[in-house]
């Protein structure tokens, strides 16, 4: 470890990062004690952990609903829950997973923790705003859980009108209010990230020396600041129509239901990218480290995040091809939807090219990263099927769509989320997790995921519609395979939770830089001190400079041998 500490101070001979990764007894975990020190903290690292705890609980609540649905679908006929309850299960699963897990998952946990560390800052630009965002998030989650306990919502996570405004007898307004409140939390965090990345980078850390993680999180934050207010006003209009019978979306009152879909998807399609951009951010960090190479085509990967952010705003109409949208408008949206595949493909090709002729090691984070690349590619390619006007008419609102977006959101984002936690766990906890169990967990998740969702492509193509509790008997075998996969997937998610908690107390000390990575976050001790660095780092090298590190490593090893 002594050798590692010396090696990773800098990446090249002329690098002047002036931080010494020497062991620090006081760190952000033991600096202050007591529950209040956590509830009133303004330390970005502690707030990241508060978010991690909350989001993990919500993930398992959302996962429980998914498991109930899968159990119900074991049989072609209703046997476990009523059709009304089934409607509530898929609605609450969607609401909790989208707004209370996927969107905040990586930014608010890992992003909160590592962004200031990666750019050499002591904290985020607005630490109090950061803490406030967690409280607002918890309030939003609390209101949504209230809706759940009062009987739930049955509109689907999309709140389509006029059902949501005129016909549903469930707790639509409470659920919408929970989401509305959580939107403020999202905006607070995003504004914080934007200001921090603009204003608090270490001396010498220019835009093109930043890790790709920062580029992606920046693009992600901009998208969230621009689209979240549209969702907020749309949900307010749903509430206004529902309560005051003002005709906005309901044709019976003089409104237009497709207008709701335009506004909802103007938010929600970019929101899909806000779920996967942070995942891409993580993969762009993991792949170079475990390939021992700089990322291939740094500039292209950096700008592809911006490209996804921009083009992602122009494609929402592909959700409405069969909803009465004009043919001309549909053609334009179809074409624009193809365009968004370009920056996504740039990333996939460049990650692959980074691995090419690299010194690839198969540690747990890399297994998750490779899983992400494969599953995201399948999810992305089937997205092109859905962007094609004619094919979309055939598979619209079927399990094909379910499989497609789960390949992006679960195969992509959740894999990246787990990869991120394994990669930065030594920094967060100061401890190493058991690598063998880590690899086993990654393989179980990959197997369980594919077993759950691949049959759903077939189901959808054969005509099985989404959101039905009962179905023709010929679909049963595929549903049974899917449910079996979901059970395996559940085990795959519980396993890392168990050994990560175990390693928090019993894991071996990690040292400052167990992966021999180049980022600034690895130049400080693990766990980091409250203010991250003893001295503000100064950077004069590009990101992922593994060639320079290799040279320096050789030099240090020789020095070490000579001593």
């Amino acid at each position, binding site marked *: 470890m002594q050798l590692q500490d010396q090696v990773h101070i800098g990446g090249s001979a002329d690098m002047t990062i002036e931080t010494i990764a020497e062991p620090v007894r006081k760190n952000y975990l033991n600096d202050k004690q007591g529950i209040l020190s956590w509830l009133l903290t303004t330390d970005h690292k502690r707030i990241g952990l508060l978010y991690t705890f909350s989001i993990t609980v919500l993930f398992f609540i959302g996962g429980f609903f998914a498991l109930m649905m899968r159990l119900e679908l074991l049989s072609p006929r209703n046997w476990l829950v009523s059709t009304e309850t089934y409607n509530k299960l898929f609605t609450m699963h969607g609401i909790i997973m989208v707004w209370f897990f996927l969107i905040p998952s990586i930014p608010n946990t890992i992003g909160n923790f590592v962004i200031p560390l990666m750019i050499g800052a002591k904290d985020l630009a607005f630490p109090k705003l950061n803490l406030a965002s967690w409280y607002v998030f918890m309030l939003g989650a609390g209101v949504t859980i209230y809706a759940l306990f009062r009987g739930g919502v049955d509109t689907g996570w999309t709140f389509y009108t006029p059902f949501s405004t005129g016909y549903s007898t469930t707790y639509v307004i409470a659920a919408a209010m929970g989401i509305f409140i959580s939107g403020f939390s999202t905006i607070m965090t995003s504004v914080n990230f934007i200001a921090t990345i*603009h204003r608090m980078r270490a001396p010498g850390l220019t835009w093109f020396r930043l890790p790709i993680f920062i580029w992606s999180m920046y693009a992600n934050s*901009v998208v969230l600041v*621009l*689209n979240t207010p*549209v969702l907020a006003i749309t949900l307010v209009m749903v509430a206004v129509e529902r309560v005051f019978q003002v005709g906005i979306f309901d044709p019976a009152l003089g409104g237009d239901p*497709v*207008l709701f879909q*335009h*506004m909802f998807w*103007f938010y929600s399609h970019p929101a899909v990218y806000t779920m996967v951009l942070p995942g891409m951010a993580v993969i762009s960090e993991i792949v170079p480290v475990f390939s021992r190479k700089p990322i291939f085509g740094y500039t292209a990967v950096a700008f592809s995040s911006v490209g996804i952010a921009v083009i992602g*705003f*122009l494609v*929402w*109409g592909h959700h*409405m091809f069969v909803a*009465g*949208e*004009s*043919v*001309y*408008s549909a053609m*334009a*949206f179809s074409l624009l939807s193809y365009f968004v595949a370009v920056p996504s493909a740039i990333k996939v090709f460049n990650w692959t090219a980074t691995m090419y002729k690299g010194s690839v090691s198969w540690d747990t984070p890399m297994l998750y990263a490779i899983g992400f690349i494969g599953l995201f590619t399948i999810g992305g390619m089937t997205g092109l099927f859905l962007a094609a006007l004619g094919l979309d008419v055939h598979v619209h609102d079927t399990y094909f769509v379910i499989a497609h977006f789960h390949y992006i959101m679960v195969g992509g984002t959740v894999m990246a989320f787990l990869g991120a936690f394994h990669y930065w766990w030594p920094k967060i906890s100061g401890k190493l997790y058991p690598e063998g169990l880590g690899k086993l967990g990654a393989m179980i998740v990959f197997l369980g995921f594919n077993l759950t969702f691949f049959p759903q492509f077939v189901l959808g193509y054969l005509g099985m519609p989404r959101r039905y509790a009962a179905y023709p008997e010929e679909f049963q075998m595929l549903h049974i395979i899917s449910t079996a996969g979901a059970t395996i997937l559940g085990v795959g998610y519980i396993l890392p939770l168990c050994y990560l908690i175990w390693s928090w107390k019993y894991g071996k000390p990690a040292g400052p830089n167990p992966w021999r990575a180049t980022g600034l976050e690895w130049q400080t001790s693990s766990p980091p001190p409250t203010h991250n660095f003893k001295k503000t780092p100064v950077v004069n090298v590009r990101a992922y400079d593994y060639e320079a590190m290799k040279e320096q490593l050789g030099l240090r090893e020789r020095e070490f041998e000579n001593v």
Partner: protein
Amino acid sequence: MTPPPLTRKTLALVFLALWALVLGTTLIGFIDLGQYNIVVSVAFAAIQALLIALFFMQALYEGRIIRIIITGGIVWFLIMETLTLGDYMTRGWLPFPGK
């Protein structure tokens, strides 16, 4: 940060202008200008939004990055409007089968 050069007089004038525009929007509802009713109403609303952004949100006195971000927000809003209205305006271009 230095406080913006906004006087009470300026703020009061902007406030009065906003109310004048509200009055104008209301009055225009009573006059039949045909298709131009909507044009005038939207123009009044746009001027109101502009006044609020420039003076109350102090965009007039902010730096380049803030102005770029505000412009970005407006461009994004226009994207939503343009593509949404593009749908509504082109729906009648293709005749319904059998009609």
